[in-house]
């Protein structure tokens, strides 16, 4: 990977690191949510953008992380440890689920994941002794990390998720994952261990939503089953990835920035109208820009997979 190709990332990250010095709390929260969407979109990109297995239930891991983080914080763990454990628990939940669901193809996988998210929501609703059920969990402000701590944690997650994509994309795993996307049988025939690769990608793609879920719980200070196991959040990830360019490193970042900015611009004054316009935008993108915004850019030719460093 050349310096030139990671330079924009470094500049962006430095800007984001410096942002708290210039931004008000509200602007920080805006950026925090933007970074959260970048982290989530990249995670989704890792499994779905790379392999073509469309997950409609990645919020399941977000929800698991949010509940794990909130409960651990309540039980007296320090906030950073709660985030780590939240991520770890999401991973532990994801690995076996990946083994089971990744046997499914196409729409079957997509809908199975949608179902898993609903099951997650129902567990959080029904397991009242642990989760307080539909009452949700209000977190005590005394234990909560500060906005700045939340912000930098989320920044770390966004950077990690993007780096993970960059790293995977330019190494053997990424190549094999894309081979799976193009033609799974053929990939298997040439010796790609498709099951192992898919499960690895799936498990990796669950860790960051797990951690992000915990941070979400901390900055919102209140979670309930409906707000964290939210299918709409999953769709937002998909919109951002596709808008920018699926399977690319920068696509989801661009997608997240555009969608959140547009939201910020229009939502306050025209609630229903702005959502309808978002719908029009999505339809327009699918019809006129099916490969995402990055496909418009002239430099795209340089990152064709067959010329990527590390390809055999």
């Amino acid at each position, binding site marked *: 990977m050349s310096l030139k190709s990671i330079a924009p990332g470094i500049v962006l990250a430095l800007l984001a690191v410096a942002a708290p010095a210039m931004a008000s709390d509200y602007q920080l929260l805006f950026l925090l949510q933007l970074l959260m969407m970048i982290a989530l979109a990249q995670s989704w990109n890792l499994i*779905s953008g790379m392999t*073509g297995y*469309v997950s*409609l239930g990645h919020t399941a891991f977000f929800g698991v992380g949010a509940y794990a983080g909130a409960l651990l914080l309540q039980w007296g763990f320090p906030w950073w440890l709660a985030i780590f454990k939240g991520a770890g628990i999401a991973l532990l939940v994801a690995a076996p689920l990946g083994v*089971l*669901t990744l*046997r*499914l*193809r*196409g*729409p*079957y996988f*997509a*809908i*199975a994941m*949608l*179902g*898993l998210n*609903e*099951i997650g929501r*129902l567990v959080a*609703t*029904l397991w009242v002794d642990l989760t307080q059920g539909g009452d949700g969990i209000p977190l005590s402000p005394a234990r909560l990390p500060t906005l700045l701590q939340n912000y930098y944690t989320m920044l770390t997650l966004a950077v990690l998720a993007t780096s993970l994509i960059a790293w995977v994309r330019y190494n053997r795993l990424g190549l094999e994952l894309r081979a799976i996307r193009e033609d799974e049988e053929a990939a298997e025939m040439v010796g790609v261990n498709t099951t192992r690769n898919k499960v690895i990608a799936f498990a990796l793609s669950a860790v960051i939503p797990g951690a992000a879920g915990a941070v979400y719980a901390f900055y919102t200070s209140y979670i309930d089953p409906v707000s964290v196991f939210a*299918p709409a959040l999953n*769709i937002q990830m*998909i*919109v951002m990835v*596709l808008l920018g360019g*699926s399977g690319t490193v920068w696509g989801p970042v661009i997608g997240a920035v555009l969608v959140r900015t547009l939201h910020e611009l229009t939502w306050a004054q025209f609630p*229903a*109208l702005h*959502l*309808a316009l*978002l*719908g*029009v*935008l*999505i*339809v327009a*993108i*699918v*019809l006129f820009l*099916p490969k995402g915004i990055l496909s418009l850019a002239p430099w795209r030719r340089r990152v064709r997979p067959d010329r990527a460093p590390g390809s055999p």
Partner: protein
Amino acid sequence: MHLLEPVLLLQFLVSGLLAGALYALLACGLNLVFGVMRVINLAHAELMLAGAFLTYVLYAWAGIHPLLAFFLVLPALFGAGFYLQRLVVERVVGKGELQSLLLTYGLSIILINTGLLIFASDFKAIPELQGALIVGDIAISKPRTAAALLAIALTLGVYHFLKHARLGKAIRAVAEHPDVAMLCGIDVVRMRMFTFGLAAAMAGAAGVMLTMIYSFSPETGADFILKCFAIIIIGGMGNFIGALYGGLLLGVAEIFVAGFVSSQWAEAVAYVLLILILLIRPTGLKGAADVT
């Protein structure tokens, strides 16, 4: 409690079938579209609500009874679906799940929010055809029975149409081998427009019935659509008649779980069934995708 009394068990079965029929009516259209063009239509429940609001407007402004409105709503939704396919959906056919998911999601939020702009988020319902027929000791809900009869009639009607009519056979040909169908001189695009129109009309029919069963707002779709996805997996994706069985099965399973365990657990039935079936048979209960 005497839950095991035969009368009560029979009542559960009847009520479950009636609840399931409404699911089936919605799921069949969803499955038809998937079967013919491999598009998962996330806006399907919003088409149902379009039917419901149209029925409501006809009732509130012109005093037209929902059962009569049916004859206006069905053609209207058929037409809307027909042109929606031509203008928009056709362009993502064969482009993979992601494109079609995203497109139909876009359509769904356009419909929901247009609904909010026009009708606000008030809950509407039409208090017609209320109450139940009492047969022996069994209560049979009037609006739900009407919905069930309609669901079965429409589903079987469309099924026979696909199986035996010329146009239906052409649609099946398009579903199985679009390229071959084209070579045989079938107007593939037109067939898909017809299919989407049919599916939209079925969703509209569910909407007409919904007005007498449930209070709805432009955002009510979410309560139904997730279960419909589970149903089409349970019945077999793309398997048109399978969605009818799937819907009825879910309706009955839900009411028995609600009866013997609790209503909260009933909500989990759809998703647990979905996962179990996928684990046992990765292509659904009724086998691989097949319009017939």
